[in-house]
């Protein structure tokens, strides 16, 4: 991802949107016995689109604000989301193909990873009590929500951040070159669709 001022503003607004939706829409209610956690999917998408550094930094910032808003130990969610965003970025940097299905699966796995990191952290700090039998099921359900929400989040974020995406620029260039080779010189702007 090429981080121009415009892309930075768009990224900030997208992450803010995710944070607002999480805090005021999803967190206060439960769906089938668990809270929908949309933040890991959001930072995983950032990692997938921008690489490990972008994913890690986005995860840290969003996690820090989330900790502050929910009075969690400051840095715990930041660490978990940073791990999710960083790993998603590593996956992307290995040159793996990136479609909506792969993005959805990555979001589901990212949600699982983020949950496990927080769980391990809380256990290491002595903040966790006896583990319920329902916990693994709840983790799986949250990961499933991550998968389902990850797909629209990926499509939305990719569209909004398209001007800054290297792959997207390459794709547009290829499309334009092919059109020129066929003799169809497109009108200005059409190739950008």
């Amino acid at each position, binding site marked *: 991802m090429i981080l121009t001022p415009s892309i930075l503003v768009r990224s900030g607004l997208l992450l803010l949107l995710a944070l607002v939706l999480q805090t*005021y829409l999803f967190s206060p209610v439960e*769906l089938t016995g668990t809270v929908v956690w949309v*933040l890991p999917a959001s930072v995983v998408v950032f990692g997938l689109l921008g690489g*490990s550094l972008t994913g890690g930094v986005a995860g840290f910032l969003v996690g820090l604000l989330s900790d502050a808003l929910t009075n969690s130990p400051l840095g715990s969610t*930041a660490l978990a989301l940073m791990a999710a965003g960083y790993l998603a970025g590593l996956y992307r940097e290995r040159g793996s193909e990136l479609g909506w299905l792969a993005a959805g699966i990555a979001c589901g796995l990212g949600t699982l990873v983020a949950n496990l990191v927080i769980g391990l952290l*809380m256990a290491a700090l002595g903040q966790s009590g006896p583990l*319920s039998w329902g916990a693994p099921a709840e983790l799986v359900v949250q990961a499933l929500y991550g998968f389902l929400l990850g797909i629209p989040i990926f499509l939305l974020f990719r569209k909004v951040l398209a001007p800054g995406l290297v792959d997207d620029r390459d794709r547009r260039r290829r499309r334009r070159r092919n059109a020129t080779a066929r003799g169809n010189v497109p009108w200005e702007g059409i190739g950008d669709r």
Partner: protein
Amino acid sequence: MYRKQIRRRRAVLLGLVALAFILITVTFGGGSGGFGQAVGTVTGPIGNVISDAFKPARDLIGWFDETFAARGENERLRSRLANAEAEVVAGRVAVQENRQFRRLLGLQRSGRIPSGYQPVTARITTRSPTIWITTAGIDRGSSDGIEVDDPVVSDQGLVGKVSSVAPSEAVVTLLPDGSSAVSAKVVPGGAQGVVTAKIGTTGEFVLEFIDETRGLEDGESVVTAGWREDDLASIYPPNLPIGEVKAVPIDTREAVKSVDIRPYPDFATLEYLTVLTGGSRG
């Protein structure tokens, strides 16, 4: 050049990891600390407006959730109804006993607030999304007289305590949180212990370190112990209902050191809470 980029990238990420650990260490045990309060102060009024705007969408999600839950609930309720019909007579006796217990315990759900406490009713605006940390943000704060460690109840019983306060909002650490522990006693038996939550669910508590297990029975009420000794006192007043004994292993009834508790409040559907402000602790 490329290696330099990679080194720089690693340095940034390692720096963030180190910063996260430093923050956790500094704020450990005290929520998100001053930074959280500052964010809460800034976002509090805006948050309440946004929260109100999202209410219809939350209700929609809640409707879906209740619809899913109702399917399983229907069959369960049918079988329970059959059992209940057979237990009507026993139920009448239980109602009589229940009245006595209520008088004995001063149950909050009967509408009585422990003496010396001022109730402040608040609406839940936010919740922690992870299963490991169970907190809820409410739309009342220090300007309403709320202080850190004030007990919080619902119409069904104790739900937690206030863990941080901003002028117009506060954060409640709920009993299902891994860090929660409440000294409690079983009535009418009188056995005492500490109630903690089983992580990963809002429906399972455990009463540990019981000092007297003889005579514990399924269905007995568990209430706050509310002790006081010299200058030290429990933050919870006595006799706030927590739940009921769910399962006492029959074969080891006299040797058991912990029992499962079914909490009275349904933490999944909490919407309004009452903060007990003022009062003398314990």
